[in-house]
């Protein structure tokens, strides 16, 4: 009896039924995604090819991609995204290691300093930077007190202010993914490489960096997407001197009343973000 039971073939559900059941499970989420993501995206694409008179053509894209001024705007957005991401990475990488190595109250304190700023509004943080950077602000006051400078340096409404503020605001989104990977890192890999004669530099580039790459890629994708599309940060820290795609979209919709052009700029911005995320996904795939 027991033998008969054990030797009996396991009855598996038919593949079609399996697929149907799986589809049943994912159908609600697919419907939500279709309603809140695909449909608005389709509408955005539709509006982006409408000209002021309601005609369908590529005029908005021609204006955006064929005018030196707007190419400069696209470059401004890319530059903001690239510089913010690069500096945020350079600051975040050692910070993530420090966070992972810290123990007890120090770790709690470091985590609190990382998470607490997320509770403050972006607007508050951007305004705080204008206070720090102004002529009689903290930075100039310290520099003058230390005798490093005689007269205040103008930092407000400069690209330095913009990048500094953006890095500060988006930093946690770089630190956290890297920290999550570093915390899981097995220290014995580095020790093994060292016992085999690898120098610290070789250990870092051949062992540590590749192992932490998934966290870096996630952080880069997050920070770049956030900074390339930032609106409040450039508006408050540099204003109209540094037009970006996000500020151009706002102006097209709210001031110039050109929804078609605004939508086209939105599509271009979305394309930039999608390309970066797609590249990040490709890079994070393990080689077969």
């Amino acid at each position, binding site marked *: 009896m027991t033998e008969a039971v054990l030797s009996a073939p396991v009855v598996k559900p038919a593949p079609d039924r399996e697929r149907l059941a799986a589809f049943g499970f994912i159908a609600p989420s697919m419907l939500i995604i279709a309603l809140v993501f695909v449909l608005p995206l389709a509408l955005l694409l539709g509006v982006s090819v409408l000209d002021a008179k309601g005609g369908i053509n590529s005029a908005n894209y021609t204006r955006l991609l064929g005018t030196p001024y707007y190419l400069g705007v696209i470059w401004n957005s890319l530059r903001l995204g690239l510089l913010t991401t690069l500096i945020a990475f350079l600051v975040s990488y050692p910070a993530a290691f420090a966070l992972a190595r810290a123990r007890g109250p120090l770790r709690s304190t470091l985590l609190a300093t990382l998470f607490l700023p997320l509770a403050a509004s972006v607007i508050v943080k951007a305004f705080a930077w204008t206070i720090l950077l102004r002529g*009689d602000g903290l930075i100039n006051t310290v520099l003058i007190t230390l005798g490093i400078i005689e007269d205040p340096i103008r930092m407000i409404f400069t690209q330095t202010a913009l990048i500094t503020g953006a890095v500060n605001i988006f930093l946690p989104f770089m630190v956290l993914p890297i920290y999550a990977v570093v915390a899981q890192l097995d220290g014995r890999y580095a020790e093994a490489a060292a016992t085999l004669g690898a120098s610290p530099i070789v250990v870092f580039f051949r062992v540590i960096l590749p192992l932490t790459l998934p966290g870096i890629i996630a952080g880069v994708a997050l920070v770049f997407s956030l900074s390339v599309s930032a609106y409040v940060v450039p508006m408050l820290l540099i204003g109209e001197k540094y037009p970006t795609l996000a500020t151009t979209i706002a102006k097209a919709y*709210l001031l*110039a009343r050109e929804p078609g052009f605004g939508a086209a700029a939105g599509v271009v911005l979305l394309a930039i973000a999608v390309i970066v995320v797609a590249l990040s996904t490709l890079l994070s795939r393990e080689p077969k």
Partner: protein
Amino acid sequence: MHPFSRRSLLKTGAAFAATFAAPSLVRAAPKEIVIGGPAGAAKYFNADLFPVLEKKLDCKVLYEGTNSLTNLQKMQADKASPKISVVIMDDPVMLPAAAEGLITKMSSSSIANLGRLVDGAVHQDGLWANYQKPWAGIAYSSKRMKTAPVSWADLWDAKYESKIIVPSLSNTEGFWTLLAAAHLETGKPYKEAQYDIDAAFKKVKSLKANLLNVYTNAPQAINLLEQGEAWMIGGQFSAYTLIRKADGSPVDLAIPADGGFAMPSGIAKVTNGPAGDVADAVIDFFLSPEAQTILADKAFVAPTNQGTPRPAGFPDPAQLFAPDWAFFAKNRAGWVDRWSKEMT
């Protein structure tokens, strides 16, 4: 159980009568009315004007403070089902709103104060009316400048490198800098210079070295002036600047010798907006001497109701130039685009 008395019957009857004979406004009064208006006015509207209005009309005001063009865009988007009942916008933005049928005619029968305004305050047969007249000049930091600027040309003085803020042309007040630039470049009076926009852009481009910032957010700009980070703001309103001076901030407003500007603010009823009868009452209140006295006292704007005395120290309207808003409204979109390209 109490037996019916003549007194209790009279009381009950009076209560019934009061309920059914009350004005329709009281019976139909919604709890809330949405007013769209300028962000810069939010502070004194909310602090000084709306409490009086809410008490008077027994309603709750929801104020959506933004700039005039954004309010226009909201009205266009909600044309089929408006959410705003009353809109407060600059005159040049009222023009397209009127042309697109987004605002509806008002009459003296439902808004009594409409017939008591100074000449020229009611536009297009009652489509909108001016409830206040702020004036514009050069706002300056009294902490940084011991003497007030005397001419618009002072903004271009090389000693003010990176010390000047001007409004973006995205804001209506951005036109003042352009108008002053046209006058300085051509040497013509404002009345003629306002049409020479190429000369204006040529001159305003030479202001770049002196610019600390070009603002779209007025409170941020005023804040920088108060701190002394900015020394002057070209083309700034009395309502934004003098209200801060009254609070003790080291700022002041100068009307240059070559003249300041008049910027009438309009109020209008949104076509098919909710709570129409309350909207009429709200507009009537804005046009009343009671509201305009509060505004003149708290926000430094000249009244438009003939029954409201002009406070001492307010400039003579003859000193102030009112531009051709129709010309401005017609060309604005192109100018905003040009401004973006030439001033960044």
